[in-house]
Every structure is written in structure tokens, then in C-alpha cells.
């Protein structure tokens, strides 16, 4: 196993080298030969993907397919075993100010002593800089972001007193405060109420209309066609990427889910959404 992996990594590295010339500063995210491993077994293996500007993109795949790992590696949160990530043509460290991240809601302890507005102001960290503390100006910006997700009335609530959907909207507001060009969201619609889902999708669409790029790990196959322009199908390896219409096909889904989706299930996905 190890040797086989090692061998493939070398090939990946050589391929990555060759493709470098094509990196454009206008391409929000380019991933080449990306492999991440938490132990012996790779979580994602040799993934290549290009994410075009001004699009909404869903990353879709079964549980354990490495969807979260992929965006964490794209953000430089988890170390890469091999491969390159270029954001607007540059290494991650040089463009952190242009990226925003919405982690999974369950990844933090909501009993933390902070109010809603405090969490949103965390998105202003990079603009605050060293040894400066948030003041009225930052508060105003945070409140404006909260207003965009319909949470302005909750600014002073302790974050543990919010519903799941409200917590998700606060996380989105924090990402809005980052004022980024590339948004990476990890399951922003998981376990939220219908009203929150509508609000979040409206905000994501307005981000797209402003020319920003939105990449979401997405779990609900029935809404992919409705919500997203492009889709990246992965299951440890990349299965397919491209516009939803041509990529989100029965054949690709079968390959992604390894026959775990019944034919009837896929039929359902083809039904027009009411």
C-alpha cells in the first residue's frame, strides 16, 4: 500500500510541475495532484480541479469521500502530502485575505463566552492587525453583515442560545465580514430550517452576482441542480467536474457513490423541483 502510494505521488508531482505554466491570477482556485492523508490511508488522493470565477460550485460525494478535507487543504488548514493549491494564481499564504471559510457548525463549542456580534467580528481579524482591538467601526461592519443574513436583532445574544439555523447564519455573517473573493463553505445547509436555507442561498447568490466565487460542500443531492452552477464529484479520487447539466449525470453519480444509490433514487433527482 505504502509503496503504491509513494509511486503515485511521484507521478502526481511530475504532472503538477508541467501544469504550472497555465496558472492565471484570475482563477480563484486551482488544485493539482492534491493528496491528503491523516494516517496510512489517503483521505483524498491526487485530485485535480479548477474552480472558475463568479460561479457557485458544489462539492458532492458520499460520507468519508474527503469533501471537508479538500476545502481544508485548499485553505491550508490541513497539511498536504503532495500537490499544489493556487488561489488567484498564488500560494495560499499570500492570498489569505481574499479567502473566507465557513466551518461545519458542529466543529465548535457554542457554549463559548461570546455574543453573536463578537463571533462576526472575528471575521475582521486580518483587517484589525496586531495589538488592535475591535471598536465601534468594527461593530458597525459586523452589524451590517448580520443584517444581510437576517440576524441583526440577535447581535447581543449569547451564541449558545441560538437555533442551529441561526448559528449557521452567524457563521455566514462572519465570512461576509471577511469580504473575500473566494468563499469556501463546509455543509452550510446541513440541519438548518427552510427559512435559513432560503436566506443562505440568497446570500450566496448575491455573492456570485458580485463576481465572487462560492464553493460549498453539499450533501443534499436533490438541490444540487437548483442551487449550483458547477459540481465537483469526489470519492477520495475525483470522479468528475464541470457544469451541473453535463456533469451531474446518472453515470457519474453511480461512479461516485459506488452503486450505493438505487436507480430509482437517481430518477427522483431528475424530477423538476417544485
Amino acid at each position, binding site marked *: 500500500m505504502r509503496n503504491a502510494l509513494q509511486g503515485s505521488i511521484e507521478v502526481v508531482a511530475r504532472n503538477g510541475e508541467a501544469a504550472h505554466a497555465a496558472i492565471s491570477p484570475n482563477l480563484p482556485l486551482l488544485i493539482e495532484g492534491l493528496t491528503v492523508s491523516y*494516517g496510512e490511508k489517503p483521505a483524498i488522493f491526487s485530485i485535480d480541479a479548477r474552480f472558475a470565477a463568479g460561479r457557485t460550485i458544489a462539492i458532492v460525494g458520499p460520507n468519508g469521500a474527503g469533501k471537508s478535507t479538500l476545502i*481544508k487543504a485548499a*485553505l*491550508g*488548514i490541513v497539511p498536504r502530502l503532495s500537490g499544489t493549491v493556487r488561489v488567484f494564481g498564488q500560494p495560499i*499564504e499570500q492570498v*489569505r485575505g481574499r*479567502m473566507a*471559510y465557513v*466551518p461545519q457548525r458542529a*466543529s*465548535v*463549542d*457554542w*457554549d*463559548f*463566552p*461570546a*455574543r453573536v456580534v*463578537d*463571533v462576526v467580528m*472575528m471575521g475582521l*481579524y*486580518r483587517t*484589525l492587525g496586531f*495589538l488592535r*482591538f*475591535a471598536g465601534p467601526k468594527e461593530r458597525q461592519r459586523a452589524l451590517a453583515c448580520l443584517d444581510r443574513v437576517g440576524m441583526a436583532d440577535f447581535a447581543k445574544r*449569547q451564541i*449558545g*442560545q*441560538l*437555533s*442551529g*439555523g441561526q448559528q449557521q447564519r452567524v457563521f455566514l455573517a*462572519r465570512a461576509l465580514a471577511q469580504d473575500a473573493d473566494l468563499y469556501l463553505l463546509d455543509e452550510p445547509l446541513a*440541519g*438548518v*430550517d427552510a427559512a435559513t436555507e432560503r436566506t443562505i442561498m440568497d446570500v450566496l447568490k448575491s455573492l456570485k452576482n458580485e463576481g465572487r466565487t462560492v464553493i460549498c460542500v453539499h450533501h443534499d443531492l436533490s438541490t444540487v441542480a437548483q442551487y449550483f452552477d458547477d459540481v465537483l464529484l469526489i470519492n477520495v479520487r475525483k470522479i468528475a467536474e464541470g457544469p451541473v447539466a453535463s456533469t451531474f449525470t446518472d453515470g457519474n453519480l453511480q461512479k461516485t457513490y459506488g452503486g450505493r444509490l438505487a436507480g430509482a433514487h437517481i430518477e427522483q433527482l431528475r424530477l423538476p423541483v417544485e
Partner: protein
Amino acid sequence: MGPDFVQLSLTPMLIGTLAALACALPGNFLLLRRQALIGDAISHVVLPGIVVAFLITGTVAAWPMMLGASLAAIVAVLLIEAIKRLGRIDAGAAMGVVFTAMFAGGVLLLEQSDTSSVHLDVEHALYGNLESLIWLGAEGWSSLLDWTALSQMPPQVARLAAVLVVVAGFIFVFWNALKISTFDEGFALSLGIRARLLGFGLVVVTAIAAVAAFDAVGSIIVIAMFICPPAAARLMTDDLGRQVAWSAAFAIVSAVLGYIFAGYGPLWFGAAGSVSAAGMIATVSGLILAATCLFGPKRKRIGAAREV
């Protein structure tokens, strides 16, 4: 409060307060990171460090002891990190393995080596010697302005004051980054905050506070102060800044009241003598925590309201 108070009570009280503050401030972050027991772990692992330092230097002077303790603390922290990462196990389990093993090693060393000629005993390690840290050079309040008298203060005062400056300075300088990485490490990393280095820095600062306080006041206060004031403060407010301020207030109140109760409390009840100041300070901090559990405004767990 006359000259006697300055001579006999002022410096122990001051030392107790400085030690309590130096431990309580980083304790806030340790508590929220579910690492509160690291203070406990560190105060245990300093024992082998002290014994080894004694075996090498042959003295019980403060600096070799503190150096040995600090090195042991750093070794312990690195071991805990290594076990956590390599074994991929819970931080608490890694701490438990390291500190019991190192403490046992320290006891074994103490038994096997000839330390009978000096005062290296368990009681000292637990309770410290707060009551003995008196200011003999003082003649009254005016001595606070007298340089020669000041220079005769127990060295623990200056040492703990310096440590408190380091601890408070670290928290002040890295306030935003500490807050974000404690709440949401993934997000902190995405912002370019070096969250793991910062977490290590916090533990090192904790170790410095624990070792300095341990030398002056013993491990009972150290363990209590890392946990009780921050935990009580968390029940008073939902704001991290206010929580830190509350924890500092509780630490000061515990140290001052604890010292007074230990010295005079038994007399009020008609008993002679006094009880251990370190034990009483820890007890007061525990009583404050109990009171906030019962009456603190934010004591209700909010998890129940969380569902959609």
C-alpha cells in the same frame, strides 16, 4: 493594621495574590480549551525536575530548583503533545499518562537518592511555605518607600510579579488570536493564525506560572487557581473579556480572604493557632465556585435551547 501586619502578613498576602493571578489568567483559556488539568499535570511533573536539579547541583537554592522544574514542565508538555499526536488519543489521557509517570519517577528518585539531609518533602510541595515568607526588614508602612527595606523583601515577590507581567503580557498581546483559536481552531488557521504555536505558547506560559507559584505557595493553590476562578467567572458573564476580569477579581478575593481566614479564622471560633493559608486560599476559591454554581447569572446550561 500596624507594623506587625506589614512585617508578617503583607508579603504572604501579596505573594498569594500574585500567584493566584498568574495562574487564574491563563486558566481562562485552558478551561475553554478543555485543558484545565494541564496545570495539575505541570505541578506534578515539577517534582522530578526539582529532584534532578538537586542531585546535579547539590543545593536547594531557588534558581536551580526553578530551572529544573521548568525543564521538567517543558519535557512533560512535549511528551503530552507527542503522545496525543502519535497515539491519536484524547489530550486528557495523554496528560494522565505523562504526569502520573513523571510524578512517580520523581518519588522514586527522591526515595533512592540521598536527599535526607535537606528539606525536600511532600508536605512542602503541597502547601508551600506562604506563612514563612515574611518581611523582616520592614518597620511599618513607610518601609514600602525605603529602598533598603524593599530589597529585603522575600525574592518571591519580585519573581512572581515578573511572571505575572509575562503572563498578562502574553494574553494582552495575543488577545484576538487566542480568542479566535480557542473558539474555532480551523477558522483561526484559515486566517493565517499559527494556532498550534499559540496553543503551545499558552502552555509554556502556564508552565512558567505554575513553576513560579509552586515554589512560593505549593501545588494546592496552583491547581485550584487554574480552575476555580476561571470556572466561577464563566458563570458570571457571557463575554470573554469580562470573564477574564471576573477571574482576576475572584483570584484576588480568594488569596486575601483565604489568608485572613487562615490566620484569624480559628481565633474567631475560639481555637488557638491557625490553619494552612494555602489550603484556606484554595478552599475560598472553591467556595466562590460553589456560590457561582448556585447563584451565578449565567449558570444555566443553554444546550437545551439549541434545537431548531
